């Protein structure tokens, strides 16, 4: 997490959770942030990279960075 460009305002751990929980929990978590604040989501669902891109473009919340390391995803989002 030290490699992130921005310090997240909140971290959401969705590791080991299956569809649709990572996306649904992301949507629930980002509601509590102010516009412009950052949410870091940790996930291991193999479909998450594709799903979070679709969710981000559908909802207008920016996907700042998405990294994958050995099946573990770190996704930094900025609330719109």
């Amino acid at each position: 997490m030290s490699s992130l460009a921005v310090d997240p305002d909140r971290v959401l751990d969705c590791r080991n959770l299956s569809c649709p929980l990572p996306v649904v929990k992301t949507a629930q978590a980002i509601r509590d942030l102010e516009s412009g604040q950052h949410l870091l989501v940790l996930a291991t669902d193999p479909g998450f990279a594709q799903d979070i891109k679709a969710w981000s473009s559908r909802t207008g919340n920016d996907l700042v960075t998405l990294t994958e390391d050995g099946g573990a995803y770190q996704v930094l989002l900025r609330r719109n």
Partner: protein
Amino acid sequence: MSENNRQKRMSIVCWSGDLDRVWPVLILSTTAAASGLEVNVFFTFWGLRVLQRNDVRVTGQNWMQKGESLVDRGGTDHLKLGKIHFGGAGTKMIKKLADDYKVATPTELLEMAKDLGVNLYPCQMTMDLYGFTKEDFIDGLGAPMGAASFIDMAADSDITLFI
């Protein structure tokens, strides 16, 4: 907001209480609401039992309605597979797998659906048919409605599904 850039809408008919149908209904509803869509789910016929409180065992006013409720237990904790139920063994196995793989249960998904503002509508006609009262249902539902109300919602929806 004009009709062109209004919020997207999805309307679903949930007509069955089979676990293999209800699960995708709830997964798609929660995901669509999480993605910013307005979501309406119309629970009708056997699907109405999904909205029954888990702690309510017998529903109905007459012996036929009560008998039906005994052989088709309602509530999200008691849904059975439409196929491969195998006297309970198949349903138990898929629930065990879902738990192992951290797939949310129908009960958890229904709670999330309410939290995300999914509109859950019981069918008035089926309520009468089964002798349901509002007290048999979970909290947080929309007002019971009929087919014409659902058609009106569906006609203005971007996605309509019958699951």
